[in-house]
């Protein structure tokens, strides 16, 4: 057995952001259920607790998003490269990756994508994360901030069309985020072993070959 090579895939700020974000978003989803359906759901002792927890988690997500943004935009300065799919990704990459997930994965073939720090996401991840990080998370955070400050920001709320429109946007985007979460967590277990992708997100280091399937290597 040859010594495994390891690559440093997830820098510390990204990992801090990610797990703060995950904790925040899961808290948001859980509290949100009680906030929307209070007469049916009684997870937290009272309604106010659910609201305050939701507001706090929203601030955590907004704060960690800022951290993420600052890191990629100002420190590592490779946001564009990491997150925006290239022309090649759009033309061939996405199809290739989809074919892997939907067909060749089941046949036991290797993942066509090999992550490097500069190109750590496969084309499908890139597109999904682009939508999540540049659209969903900012918009949910922004609508959430408005919803926690309705009176002082009434004019902005009216500009959007009113409180109810704001709620509708917040609710539907949040559902999308939650739907992403299901898919995301599932796909995160799709490595060689279920933890093979999750561990690097925690430690930063990826064992070379985590995404590969062995009969090619052996």
């Amino acid at each position, binding site marked *: 057995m040859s010594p495994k090579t390891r690559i440093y895939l997830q820098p510390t700020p990204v990992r801090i952001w990610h797990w703060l974000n995950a904790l925040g978003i899961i808290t948001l989803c859980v509290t949100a259920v009680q*906030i*929307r*359906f*209070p*007469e049916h759901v009684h997870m937290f002792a*009272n*309604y*106010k607790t659910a*609201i*305050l927890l939701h*507001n706090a988690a929203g601030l955590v997500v907004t704060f960690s998003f800022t951290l993420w943004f600052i890191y990629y935009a100002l420190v590592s300065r490779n946001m564009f490269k990491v997150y925006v799919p290239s022309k090649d990704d759009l033309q061939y990459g996405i199809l290739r990756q989809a074919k892997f*997930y*939907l067909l060749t*994965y*089941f*046949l*036991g073939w290797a993942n066509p994508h090999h992550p490097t720090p500069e190109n750590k996401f496969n084309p499908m991840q890139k597109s999904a994360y682009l939508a999540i990080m540049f659209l969903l998370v900012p918009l949910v955070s922004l609508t959430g901030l408005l919803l*926690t*400050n*309705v*009176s*002082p920001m009434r*004019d902005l*709320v*009216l500009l959007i*069309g*009113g*409180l*109810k*429109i704001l*709620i*509708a946007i917040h*609710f*539907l985007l949040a*559902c*999308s985020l*939650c*739907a*992403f*979460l*299901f*898919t995301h*967590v*599932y*796909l995160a277990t*799709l490595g*060689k*072993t279920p933890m093979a992708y999750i561990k690097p997100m925690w430690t930063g280091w990826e064992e070379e070959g985590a995404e590969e*399937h*062995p*009969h090619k290597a*052996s």
Partner: protein
Amino acid sequence: MRILSKIKQIGLLMSLLTLLPFMVAAMENSECMDCHGDADMVGKELTIEPLTFDNTAHAEVGCHACHASITDQHPDDGLAPSKAACNECHDEVNDEYGNSLHAGYADCNDCHNPHQVRGPTAVSGQDMNLKCAICHERTEMLETHGEWLPQADLHISNLPCVTCHSASDEYVISLYIIKRQSGTMFGKFDLATYDELHEFSGGKPIERLVDTNADGYISLAELRMFNLDPAKKQLRLQGMMTPERLSHDFMTLDNRWDCSFCHASGPGAMQVSYLSLAQGDGAFKRIAVEKGAVLDALYGTPDFYMVGSTRSKALNYVGLVILAGGMVMPIGHGTLRFLTRKNRKNEEE
């Protein structure tokens, strides 16, 4: 034939007789109002706004009933006329209020002008709050309530104090038309006055601003039309949860600490709403709104939302579909993954 018309005549006479006390009251009222309805005659302090007074329940009682000691020589006699105490006629409310802690802080007349009385459904929530604001200053209330109430400013602006500080067995959503202060882009919204509404309705009865087909009922379609009409951009609907009756104990009700009294009552409790419009005499008139209008997903009441209780069912279903979409990969892919696990067998070693 003759008998019939006789009966008719008697009927007319009888109905006139039953109306007599009111007609007398009205006649006497107008006698007093010759002077007291005119600020030039008696000065501002002693003026009673005729339009306002004439449509109160007290107009039927009449000036004399409450100022019984008044003489024919008034005002030249120099005597101060008597002023009836409220408990002479309102013993029930008087007892209730008398037993409350608040009776030590304020009299009936601190909150009521006997010449401008209205029931709780004939005033706006904002007007009710003006009564309390005489003694309980808004900024102070924002501060004390903000200690425990999330978004206290939103609550204090959109709820009558009595919704939390007085018991009622029924609450409804009252919609008021508010208007942006003229000529400004981001100016404050204030309750639209009768005159302002009249300007917008272009001479038609102001109800027609929303009730376009004039059937005395506001359908969801009419509500949406009003909210989307660009010509009425300066006007908006403000919703308030208002009591249908109120108890006069003005205390802190225990369950009003608990947000769920309002927010977890469920959409079932939010079915009844009214549009409440300022009239020329200062009272508010209500027009029934289609059942469940405030639960409409978007344009029924675009700026009224009570978290938890006015959620839209349609949006719930859209949300569910989105979430189900998120489960396609875990469930669909997961199943195939399990079935084909042998193909990837040696990787687990």
